[in-house]
């Protein structure tokens, strides 16, 4: 195996299915989340949200609220403390270009649900009651939240968002080739805006430690982002604010940027010199970031044999009035297939909502859905099997960067996925398959996501009792980061998993990036492995230096770390325990740091992507419009799989979320009010158990050199393409192309 973690090349835990090490704490309630930490004299803040979407606040009467016994203070724009002046200070690590929203800044209302006051009281119930007594006068203006009415004002963002590649320049002549091609398709695609809706609502508990020092428990996908934001906005020194976030009840990207409850809790704590907790309600979870509405047009043209002659993908994405949020929507259409004439265009148009944000596979969910539906339409137009069409246009090169792709086992995904699904039995004709009253449809699509690595560090400590602790500041969103770092530590030093503890989500630990972009396993995993290898080298030196050491004159390359011992690889009878080595060296602990970042040479030479092939079976009661997704096979090429059990769970979650995109999820705007109306989990529909049938996950073998462990990340690839596979299956079943998600009963009946 090209990539092994163990010094001797034989991994015991890495690559094997292991249960989550944080599982018992989570199911027994011992795991604490941001809104559950307590402090002496803790006060509680309740957010009051704007009733209008645009305009200004003319008056706030807080007298009745302030008169409620137990109310500590009502904060509004009229009495807020001064915070940093420049926009720059409010721009967090992943902020798009623009002027970030500042809570309680002035009397202007920018969007519906904007926080306009914070009521702080001795307990939550009093704060909530007092909040209901605030009387707020507004001068309302008509909002514009309908993207279709703003598209004429769309513009190419003048400033690019850091880390987001703008579309590449055109190659060839897409429009000319389109007109000249024998088979031509041009269609509009759209996916409804979605809200992330993690189980755990956003919350911050700011603990006043005295002397202007704070410990902050925040729901965030990377504590360093909250810490630097608080330092810049509130003028705090790094030593004055420690941010801790050991667990998240889901994030999906909603926890990448510090959200307004963090600002409000810190503001109140600083003024009151007292600990404050602010937890958002489920309704308020619809009052900040969301997956944007995007208007897309895809035009594809091909020769009679299906060879692509032209691909043009245009997208207009909604953003707020104050920030130019950007994600990669159209570039995928220049990456996935071989085509000489490609034109990719991405614009923004402003509406009166909060700034949209990254939501699981941001941009790819949207853009790949459109492309992969267009490819299915092209398969029908050229009379080809959808897999055959994709293989005919297969490429090993990323033409948007003119670089080979480091590894791309997508052919194996198609082949193994098709076999598991039974694709060869498919009758290509739509409406040709039936099961009782239901039409049966089989559809497929390709998925793609970037395989990224970020600069990261990790610390490791081996103590005299033979126990290892690994830590850094990244987050485990529930994906299994605690578990894979435990496996890596255990294999590097030859320990049992029980002897390894992992600590995450604390700014006092080694610095690591936000958990997002599917880069955590590669980045923090590599840093942790290197820290542990450094410890291995040090403890080996101690062991070899022992009097009459059995390892005397043995090189590091010739030993194995197994069962708490260092052994000579080809003579295990010669060994020293880690505990004895440390005792002999007179050490209580050995500490080491490891760091990782992507190799510039490798980055310059190759593009790095994760791929998948998704196969979906739907059953449609056409008369009544009901669609059931009865089977999904998702075949994934993501490099080395560190833990097949947590890996599978990640893909299952991505697929379920993809089913949600396809059939259920839709944040419904009332454009007259500029307000998302179905702001609760009763009316914002995510899939429930009854909607989920068989999901089969395959990991195909893939060797990759992108990073020292050969991993590519799994957080996002499970969702990309899933909705397209389902929509394509609905077409196969019914003969109806539904290009506007979600596919609800009304659209099937149309």
């Amino acid at each position, binding site marked *: 195996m090209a990539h092994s973690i163990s010094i001797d090349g034989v991994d015991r835990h890495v690559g094997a299915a292991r249960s989550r090490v944080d599982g018992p704490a989570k199911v027994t309630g011992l795991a604490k989340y941001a809104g559950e930490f307590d402090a002496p004299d803790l006060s509680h803040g309740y957010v009051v*949200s*704007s*009733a*209008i979407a645009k305009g200004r606040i003319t008056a706030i009467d807080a007298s009745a609220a302030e008169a409620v016994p137990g109310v500590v203070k009502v904060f509004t724009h009229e009495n807020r403390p001064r915070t940093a002046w420049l926009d720059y200070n409010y721009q967090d690590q992943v902020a798009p270009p623009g002027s970030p929203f500042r809570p309680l800044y002035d009397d202007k209302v920018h969007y*519906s649900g904007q926080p306009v006051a914070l009521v702080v009281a001795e307990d939550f*119930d009093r704060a*909530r*009651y007092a909040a*209901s007594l605030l009387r707020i006068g507004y001068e309302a203006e008509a909002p514009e939240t309908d993207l279709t009415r703003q598209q004429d004002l769309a513009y190419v963002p003048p400033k690019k968002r850091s880390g987001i590649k703008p579309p590449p320049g055109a190659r060839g002549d897409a429009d000319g080739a389109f007109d000249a091609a024998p088979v031509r398709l041009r269609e509009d695609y759209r996916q409804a805006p979605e809200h992330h809706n993690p189980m755990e609502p956003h919350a911050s508990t700011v603990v006043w430690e005295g002397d202007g020092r704070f410990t902050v428990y925040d729901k965030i996908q990377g504590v360093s982002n909250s810490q630097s934001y608080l330092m810049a906005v509130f003028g705090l020194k790094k030593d004055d604010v420690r941010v801790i976030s050991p667990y998240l009840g889901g994030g999906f990207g909603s926890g990448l940027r510090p959200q307004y409850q963090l600002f409000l809790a810190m503001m109140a704590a600083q003024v009151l010199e007292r600990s404050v907790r602010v937890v958002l309600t489920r309704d308020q979870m619809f009052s900040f970031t969301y997956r944007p509405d995007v208007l897309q047009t895809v035009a594809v043209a091909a020769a009679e044999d299906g060879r692509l002659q032209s691909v043009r993908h245009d997208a207009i994405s909604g953003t707020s009035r104050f920030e130019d949020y950007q994600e990669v929507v159209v570039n995928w259409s220049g990456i996935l297939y071989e085509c000489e004439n490609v034109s990719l265009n991405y614009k923004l148009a402003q509406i009166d909502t909060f700034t949209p944000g990254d939501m699981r596979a941001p941009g790819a969910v949207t853009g790949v859905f459109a492309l992969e539906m267009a490819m299915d339409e092209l398969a029908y137009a050229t009379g080809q099997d959808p897999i055959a069409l994709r293989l005919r246009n297969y490429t090993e090169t990323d033409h948007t960067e003119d670089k080979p792709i480091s590894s791309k086992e997508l052919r194996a995904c198609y082949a193994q996925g098709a076999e598991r699904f039974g694709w060869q039995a498919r009758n290509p004709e739509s409406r040709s398959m039936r099961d*009782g*009253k*239901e039409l049966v449809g089989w559809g497929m699509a390709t998925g793609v996501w970037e395989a990224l690595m970020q600069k990261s560090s990790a610390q490791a400590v081996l103590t005299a009792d033979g126990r290892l602790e690994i830590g850094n500041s990244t987050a485990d969103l529930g994906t299994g980061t605690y578990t894979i770092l435990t496996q890596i530590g255990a294999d590097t030093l030859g320990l049992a998993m029980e002897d390894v503890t992992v600590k995450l989500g604390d700014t006092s630990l080694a610095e690591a990036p936000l958990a997002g972009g599917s880069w955590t396993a590669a980045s923090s995993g590599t840093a942790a492995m290197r820290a542990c290898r450094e410890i291995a080298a040090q403890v080996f030196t101690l062991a070899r230096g022992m009097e009459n050491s059995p390892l005397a004159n043995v090189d590091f390359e010739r030993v194995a770390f197994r069962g708490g011992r260092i052994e000579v690889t080809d003579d295990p009878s010669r060994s020293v325990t880690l505990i004895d080595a440390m005792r002999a060296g007179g050490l209580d602990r050995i500490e080491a740091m490891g760091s990782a970042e992507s190799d510039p040479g490798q980055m310059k030479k190759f593009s790095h992507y994760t791929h998948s092939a998704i196969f979906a079976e739907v*059953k449609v*009661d056409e*008369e*009544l*419009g*009901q669609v*059931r997704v009865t089977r999904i096979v998702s075949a994934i090429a993501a490099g080395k799989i560190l833990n097949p059990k947590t890996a599978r769970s990640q893909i299952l979650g991505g697929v379920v979320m993809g089913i949600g995109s396809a*059939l*259920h999820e839709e944040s*419904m*705007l*009332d454009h*007259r*009010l500029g*307000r998302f*109306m*179905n*702001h*609760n989990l*009763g*009316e914002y*529909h995510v*899939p*429930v*158990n*009854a*909607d989920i049938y068989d999901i089969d996950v395959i990991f195909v073998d893939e060797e990759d050199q992108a990073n020292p462990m050969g991993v590519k990340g799994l957080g996002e690839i499970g969702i990309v393409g899933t909705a397209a596979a389902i929509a394509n299956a609905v077409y196969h079943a019914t003969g109806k192309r539904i290009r506007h998600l979600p596919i*609800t*009963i*009304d659209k099937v*009946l*149309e």
Partner: protein
Amino acid sequence: MNRFEYVRAGTVAEAVQAFASGAESRFIAGGTNLVDLMKYNVERPDRLVDITRLPLDSIEEHEGGLRIGALVTNATAAYDERVQARYPVLSSAILAGATGQLRNAATMGGNLNQRTRCYYFYDEATPCNKRQPGSGCAAIGGVNRIHAILGASEHCIATHPSDMCVALAALQATIRLAGPEGERQLAIADYHRLPGDAPQQDTNLKPGEIVLSVDLPAEDFSRHYTYLKLRDRLSYAFALVSVAAILELDADVIRTARFALGGVAHKPWRDAEAEALLQGRAPTREVFEEAADHVVRHAQPQSQNAFKIELARRAIVRGLTQAAAGTPQPLSDKRIA
């Protein structure tokens, strides 16, 4: 949520009396809807009268039918052997609604009195005549794909969200009440009302009246019935359209036909003329379509819910077909029978 007084009543008389001594009293049992509404500031009672200790939690034989106490939980009623054997349409309707946890807490009386799920009704930042009479109806011209197509008014287009009540309408249940002026009975058809110009009133309950029981008639509809519910996901979603249908067939002739619709109006919707069209006819698709066309003949769509008219028509046909064939919609298999 506002501050309120809490009292627990031991008898019906105590409950009625305790209710009368508050200015804005509410009875509370399971609380699955009321507590949400209080958190949203939609309901702001000054006094909660806890009725969970009243002796109204049994299911008894009554005049050949069943009397189901107001405090019997939805789960208990749905799984009661007598209900399952004699009124399977009721059992089926209850189990099509909410979730196991909610059904364990929710009561018969509470289900009758649950309030609409109109987005605007729950959102105090928006106008709503039902929440705040005279403020207007924002659902008209707004996000209204879940709203009414029958019996709505210019003041309100909300629907009644219950599944249970749709089955009770088809079964012609009787609701027994007690209040300051004594006991009385209301036919289920007269219990809920259409919005008209007073949408703040969901029912014809008089102030301070409490539900004692739901009485089911002594008829047997265990052979030809169905409860068919169409919604945006396969569980835990309110009906876009639902149909409770019960038939009595004599050889190949329909002797009795009763069906009610959920999700389409401010109350469970029955159409006596459409039912009469079925009487004495053969249970064929054409006959069912005739009845369905009759029901939707006066349907009025809103800006986003025109599809519900056709969906209601098709659901009626399918529901009657399921009932006639003796193949009711199963609850566990989400495939539509």
